[in-house]
């Protein structure tokens, strides 16, 4: 049973990675690693900022 759960969790984690669901975790990791002095953006601020930046840097989707 544990193996099945781990499998499902792995697939979900992978899909989440492909969708970009882990972007905030990665941002926090980067923030920590790069030794910023100020506090990081909160989760809400981060996603808002991310969406607003996408407004000015559109990414193509292929056919």
């Amino acid at each position, binding site marked *: 049973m544990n193996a099945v759960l781990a499998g499902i969790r792995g697939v979900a984690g992978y*899909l989440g990675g492909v969708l970009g669901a882990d972007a905030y975790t990665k941002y926090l990791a980067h923030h920590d690693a790069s030794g910023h002095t100020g506090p990081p953006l909160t989760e809400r601020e981060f996603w808002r900022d991310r*969406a607003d930046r996408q407004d000015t840097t559109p990414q193509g989707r*292929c056919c």
Partner: protein
Amino acid sequence: MGTMPDGTQDASTNSSTHGTVRLDDGIVADPSLPPTSVEDAVRDSADRTWTPAKIALWAAIALLGGVAWFMLAVIRGETVNAIWFVFASVCTYLIGYRFYSKVIERYLLKPNDRRATPAEYKADGKDYVRTDRNVLFGHHFAAIAGAGPLVGPVIAAQMGYLPGTIWIILGVVLAGAVQDYLVLFFSMRRGGRSLGQMAREELGVIGGTAALIATLLIMVIIVAILALVVVNALGESPWGVFSVGMTIPIALFMGVYLRYLRPGKVMEVSIIGFVLLMAAIIGGGAVAGTEWGAAFFHLDKVTIAWGLIIYGFIAAILPVWLLLAPRDYLSTFMKIGVIVMLALAIIVVRPEITVPAFSEFAGRDNGPVFSGALFPFLFVTIACGALSGFHALIASGTTPKLIEKERQTRLIGYGGMLMESFVAIMALVAAISIDRGIYFAMNAPVALTGGTVETAAAWVNSLGLSGVNIAPGDLAQTAKDVGEQSIISRSGGAPTLAVGLAHIMQQFIGGTAMMAFWYHFAIMFEALFILTAVDAGTRVARFMLQDSIGNFVPKFKEHSWRPGAWLCTAVMVVAWGAVLLMGVTDPLGGINTLFPLFGIANQLLAAIALSVCLAIAAKRTALKYLWIVAAPLALAAVVTITASFYKIFSPVPAVGYFANNAAFAKALADGKTSFGTAKTQAAMEAVVRNSMIQGWLSIIFVVLSIIVIITAVMATITALRNTAAGLPNTEHEDPAQASRVFAPAGFIPTAAERDLVAEWNTLPAGQRLEKSGHH
């Protein structure tokens, strides 16, 4: 900046022929860190050591692939099993990936893992983020794959299965995947610069400007024709209109949920969205079954086209978080799920294919689904899946900013495109698993089929196709099975694929009762991919237009300036909307005349991308390896320029736009009130207008592309002369910086890579990547 040491010729001969460790790359690695790259000598010896097990494995792959190709190409039985398509393609991909892409890596690109990627030296935690190679593979694949590989192979099936299969599989190995790999690598070396910027740097002002204008026009055409595919799939289909229409409120809900209710819960909202989507498909059946639903959602194609144009404008000016981003999540989710499911279904069901290898239309240029001879038109009809220029825009966009190690570009760029090619093969299998009579009844324009089951059956039977004898009842029954009022002349590829997919899936899950669900499920995901591409394409094109106008009116460069943004959006929407309406109202059947233009546009873009790659490659490799780029470029150039010339100069009205224009203009001048498939004078005038516009578009595309190719060849010759004379070439790569991380290159790490990963894992956490970036 001068030439990089690894950009010169002697570095290449050094590292490759003698297998020596290349330490003259000008990079000073941090001595406190473990190596950031497997030593070249170790990698080479592992590559070149052929253990019996390894020999047996590759011999088995080659043998299986050979048998599969033999079954497809040589054996002429009554039927051929679909599983051979899977084996032939997968084995060829594996061999291409293991052997050919390594040739490109070793002799042309020469990635250096000691060198940091943009995701490392520009790391900002937002746009430039090191991403696990397996995740990035999925991410890149989701960005390049869409409706294209699902549509082209279906249309090309007119000529039988073999020409399309050969082109999809060999085309990707030798051309399509090469293009994606090269563009990704060169863009990564340039900090993730776009194709347009690279063209400007490498080809100069004239070549760069021509490339920019061509890209913009090509995007308009591609968006318009993708939109046409959706319109054709939804016309007179209340179920389809309802369920695809429901994606808009679903996406809006997801957008609000992510923005205000639970920010960042992407996975959660995607699952909610997916459930709602399934409900919309099932609900669509119920709604279309009611009298008011059937009446309200029964829209003709012109109405849907106008709806799509208005929607396209609104969607492109709305903030990304509200509509585009959530639908992108949904589309990605569906994409991966559908493709895995389709592959499973084909492997489990293994349908028997009755379509001949070469059909009666393979040797003719007047097929009803698309007109023109096999060469060059088959090669442009299947663009995505074999060679797609549009990918160059993606490979020089987000992906290079996320890549962790240089050597991973082979997996992501080359491997990702092989995966898309496999999607195209599966679409082909799904489309040819249905009866040929149904195929032609669905894909020929209404002018030929007459629009009713009786006339369509009579017309199909009159074609004299071997083994085809269809009764009107068969066509009516198929329509009933998939829950549609009619399937006659549902051109555009999407409905045919949906019928094929429903046919396969119902044998896998659910039986005949589920066919209507699977049909609308397929229509739904194709529409979802296309709407995302239309939105994103309009946005990207709008920014390109704003930047171009900004060179003359600086105010336009301010992306937040509303009037400028709206004006440029409107210009782009009007441009593709006009082509879309032209296609919808075309008496000759829009897809049939416009689809070649889509393929030509896409592959001209590929020619442009490969030209830029050629100019760059000439600076970093010996002449004898330039064929790796030159061969696919020559192919793309010959195919697209020949196809364009046919479209411009052919005296056959079905093929040449101007010949068609002249024929209809003459008929009008003679005072005829109907001519060919146009039954009214207004329709004849429409043909005159449409063919003139299409003809001029063809001329503009081909002229711009020829300019780009010529400037690229000139840049290439200059670079080769410089190298021969010992002069340095101008190098536009970002300066090399030492990498501070390590990750394996492929899906499965090699023994040396595993050892190195273990060594890195013993490093205390604080010491790994202490300063990855700075603000």
